[in-house]
């Protein structure tokens, strides 16, 4: 690990490595450069967090509550501790400091349950043992006596008179303005006069929508390795989305200064928001510090469903009005998000759901309210699309209903009301970059449709694999109908509402083996999105070098912020670009000092770094970078910020809350077996504006991946919580279904590049927008095929057959 100071703890035998990429091509921005970690990943050598390994390490295991809401009467750990091979058993009483809770915004989540448990699967005790099975068996010997409490499971039970309070002693900053202590946060958006504008409507359409609880279902389970240091600190190798946010929450619980908690990102097997909150981080550190030995924790899939927050399930009430010539008059809506037992990212999800509730449309008169509940359901927080997904599902269903009532084409109706650059958002914020909503709809509609009923026209009879039900051979086409549906969505990019959303990059330039080499060091979590690829491309472009080394992300460099909210290429990419620009200036300064007297252009011309040389803007070569840098290195670490945002007014929701918006449109083509209620999505086309595609291959991969997660929630994905017990009923990949390659159709993508002049290279965050509109597009297509109303995700066979 070059460039970092010696560690206080011994490094694991299997640990993250530098990623060095040379290559013969220029491989700068705009090119489909291949991943620098690609070879490691296809050979099985890439070190994911669950692969961490240390000589003499122990295995940690977490005992979780079997009930959703209960007082803990007693915990007896004696038998567990006496189990051969067990080194430590910890409960709440063993926590080393008075800081016993953590949280992203509100510190309401116990490290280990104390006094009571508030949801099924809450961590109660920890075991460290010499074999994972020993740890599991010992944990099963811990005796816990629970006295069950009444449950809060929805808005009615949360706000009923005398309702039990999920957090009876709230002191957070939202408590002063929420109507009930079981409401985490409430954000109204009031603009114009919706009640007055409704009088101008020729048609009024209302609907009630239910969005199920989706899981991120990243494939790499929560895992990591904590290694105690000789200085009393700890080294933590872990998969996360934001090292410094974790650090801020971990260190106080351990009673250590932040510099003694040294975090290194190990390989991340997907995230999608599910790694924004802590999972096993503090637990592994506690066990390592207690036992004096390295401790590895790896969740299995069952535990993973309890180890991270989920997407907020939501109920949404919408009323739109329109004139008979097809102009929207007003919007009234109410969005109730279930945040579950702990706050997590609920306040920000409320902010997004409310401020984006109107969708990418011009509606001057709105009356919007979004709230998030505290309940005894599983905690919900960040997931790809983050509040905007739930709203998009509802407003797009509404657009189809209004269009139908007016007798208009649903795409033309949307285009007629589409926002554009200059539109004022319901928050009062003007949209000051391209907003090609009508154009994206036009493009996605113009894409060629898949052939009609392939299973009939194939000639030699139906290939049952192409039909709903597939290989199960449930139909040969009888009862199968086709439908087409459209949707479009708007997502904010980056953290909003006044958050100081900065990033830091360290860039070093030197000569190694006669070649100029750039080293990029950030704390950005590479979770699969391709940030490492883009950082190398940016360094090549800005510094004119071929060879770029990406150091592992760790806390030895300043914060990069979270790999979420479609922000990382914008913000950490922006930080790398900015630091490279300053490095370039210093390199040119060295060149001027060494060679300035040899050529007047050093003083007068605009100088660039290209192909390992200093060149004038006219293309004249002044020196090689190897000669300029020989014996000297330039090394800078700088923070970078995008333009600031403002908090939303708590009564009116007015404020310039967002940095940038991202737009995608989908067209879904489905076939439905109306007899069995089985759906086959035939094609899911997408058009998206990406501002500037820094890496077109990765851009398309992100769009297809996001589209598929939206497809999943449309037709199969839902964490089912028993309303009577608040227990999760399907925590496994047997029962929580995510799309397989057989469920996922062809996803043609049309990428539009309209530069945002405020963003680095004109880029636009891309990761989330495709997750918004694919769900309502599939729903619209199923409605088109069946004529059914369908107001809930996921659509299940019984919704289609009325059984």
């Amino acid at each position, binding site marked *: 690990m070059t460039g970092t100071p010696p560690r206080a703890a011994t490094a694991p035998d*299997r640990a993250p*490595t*530098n*990623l*060095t*990429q*040379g290559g013969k091509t220029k491989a700068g921005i705009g090119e*489909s450069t*291949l*991943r620098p*970690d*690609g*070879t*490691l*990943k*296809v*050979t*099985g*050598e*890439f*070190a*994911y967090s*669950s*692969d961490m*390994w240390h000589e003499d390490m122990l295995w940690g295991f977490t005992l979780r509550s079997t009930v959703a809401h209960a007082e803990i009467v007693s915990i007896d750990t004696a038998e567990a501790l006496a189990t051969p091979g067990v080194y430590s058993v910890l409960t709440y009483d063993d926590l080393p400091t008075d800081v016993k809770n953590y949280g992203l915004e509100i510190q309401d989540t116990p490290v280990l349950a104390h006094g009571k448990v508030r949801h099924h699967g809450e961590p109660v005790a920890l075991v460290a043992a010499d*074999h994972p*099975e020993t740890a599991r068996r010992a944990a099963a010997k811990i005796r816990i006596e629970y006295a069950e409490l009444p449950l809060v499971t929805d808005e009615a039970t949360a706000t009923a008179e005398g309702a039990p309070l999920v957090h009876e002693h709230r002191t957070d900053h939202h408590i002063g303005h929420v109507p009930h202590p079981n409401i985490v946060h409430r954000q109204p958006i009031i603009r114009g006069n919706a009640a007055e504008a409704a009088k101008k409507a020729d048609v009024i359409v209302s609907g009630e929508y239910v969005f199920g609880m989706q899981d*991120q*279902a*990243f*494939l*790499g*389970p929560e895992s990591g390795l904590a290694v105690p240091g000789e200085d009393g600190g700890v080294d933590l190798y872990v998969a996360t989305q934001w090292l410094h946010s974790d650090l801020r929450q971990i260190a106080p619980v351990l009673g250590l200064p932040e510099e003694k908690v040294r975090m290194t990102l190990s*390989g*991340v*097997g*997907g995230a999608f928001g599910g790694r924004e909150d802590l999972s096993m981080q503090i637990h592994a550190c506690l066990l390592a510090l207690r036992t004096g030995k390295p401790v590895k924790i*790896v969740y*299995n*899939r069952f535990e993973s469903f309890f180890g991270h927050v989920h997407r907020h399930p939501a109920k949404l009430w919408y009323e739109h009005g329109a004139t008979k010539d097809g102009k929207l008059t007003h919007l009234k809506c109410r969005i109730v998000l279930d945040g579950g037992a702990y706050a997590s990212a609920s306040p920000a999800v409320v902010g997004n759901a409310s401020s984006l509730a109107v969708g990418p449309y011009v509606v001057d008169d709105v009356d919007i309210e979004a709230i998030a509940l505290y309940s005894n359901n599983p905690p919900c927080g960040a997931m790809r699309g983050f509040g905007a997904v739930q709203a998009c599902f509802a407003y797009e269903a509404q657009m189809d209903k209004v269009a139908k009532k007016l007798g208009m084409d649903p795409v033309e109706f949307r285009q007629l009301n589409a926002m554009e650059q200059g539109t004022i958002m319901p928050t009062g914020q003007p949209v000051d970059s391209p907003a090609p909503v009508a154009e994206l709809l036009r493009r996605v509609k113009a894409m060629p449709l898949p052939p009609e009923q392939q299973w009939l026209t194939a000639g030699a009879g139906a*290939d049952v*694999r192409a039909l709903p039900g597939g290989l199960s051979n449930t139909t040969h086409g009888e009862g199968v109908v086709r439908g087409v549906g459209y949707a479009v969505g708007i997502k904010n990019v980056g953290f909003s509402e006044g958050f100081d959303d900065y990033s830091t990059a360290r860039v070093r330039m030197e000569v190694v083996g006669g070649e100029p080499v750039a080293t990029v060091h950030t704390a950005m979590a590479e979770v*699969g*999105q*391709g940030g490492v690829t883009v950082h190398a491309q940016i360094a090549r472009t800005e510094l004119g070098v071929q060879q770029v080394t990406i150091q592992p992300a760790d806390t030895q460099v300043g914060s990069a912020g979270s790999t979420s909210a479609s922000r990382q290429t914008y913000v950490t990419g922006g930080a790398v670009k900015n630091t490279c620009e300053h490095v370039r200036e210093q390199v040119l300064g060295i060149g001027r000092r060494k060679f300035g007297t040899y050529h007047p252009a050093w003083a007068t011309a605009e100088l660039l770094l290209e192909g390992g040389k200093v060149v004038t803007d006219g293309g004249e070569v002044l020196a090689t970078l190897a000669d300029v840098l020989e014996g000297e290195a330039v090394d800078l670490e700088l923070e970078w910020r995008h333009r600031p945002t403002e908090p939303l007014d708590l009564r009116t929701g007015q404020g310039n809350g967002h940095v940038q918006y991202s737009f995608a449109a989908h067209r879904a083509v489905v076939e439905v077996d109306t007899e069995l209620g089985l759906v086959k999505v035939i094609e899911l086309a997408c058009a998206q504006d990406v501002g500037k595609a820094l890496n077109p291959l990765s851009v*398309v*991969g992100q769009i*297809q*991946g*996001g589209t*598929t997660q939206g497809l999943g929630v449309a037709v199969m994905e839902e964490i089912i919580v028993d309303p009577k017990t608040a227990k999760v009923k399907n925590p*496994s990949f*047997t029962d929580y279904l*995510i*799309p*397989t*390659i*057989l469920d*996922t159709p062809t*996803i043609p993508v049309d990428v539009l590049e309209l530069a945002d002049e405020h963003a680095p290279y004109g880029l636009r965050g891309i990761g989330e927008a495709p997750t918004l509109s694919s769900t309502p597009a599939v729903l619209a297509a199923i409605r088109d095929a069946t004529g059914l109303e369908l107001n809930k995700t996921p659509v299940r066979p019984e919704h289609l057959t009325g059984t």
Partner: protein
Amino acid sequence: MRVTFTVNGRRQEADDVWEGESLLYVLRERMGLPGSKNACEQGECGSCTVRLDGVPVCSCLVAAGQVEGRDVVTVEGLADFARQRAEGGCASGVCGTGLDEAQQWQARPTDSQTGEHAELAPIQQAFIDAGAVQCGFCTPGLLVAADELLERNDSPSDADIREALSGNLCRCTGYEKILDAVRLAAARGEQHTAGQGA
């Protein structure tokens, strides 16, 4: 118990294996071969797919004791496996890897930490070239499954590819680029064959 079997052409012994340990656990935690991934450990996601006597299996569902005396190929050995197959040798080990041969087997060192210039199986290179790798956690299992498909069927239709890979979950890519990668590897294989014929 002690389990003795062949992994990627090398004879391996694991001591003190607990009866309930899976082949996946033994590979990852005892053999130092973490390439096979632990995403669900219940046979639903395919991330831990290996070849057991040539047959693709979820190694999480195979008890370690079941592999006694048998032959396992993991993603770590995939490149060598594909090379030997291309050279007409007995890649799968079904026909028996000689003990002398197995003992002489050496993992090939790569010349940088990213493994650049490593010799890759065609399917591995195709996954990189097609952009089929994002977080990469599903990749090892998909590679083993896709390589086995191409061994059986060197010009699969899209429906064949979908059917063969339907036991491997991927959460990042939307599968389109995985399809591209398998098509690419198949096309390159055909070119290679055509070149030899000409």
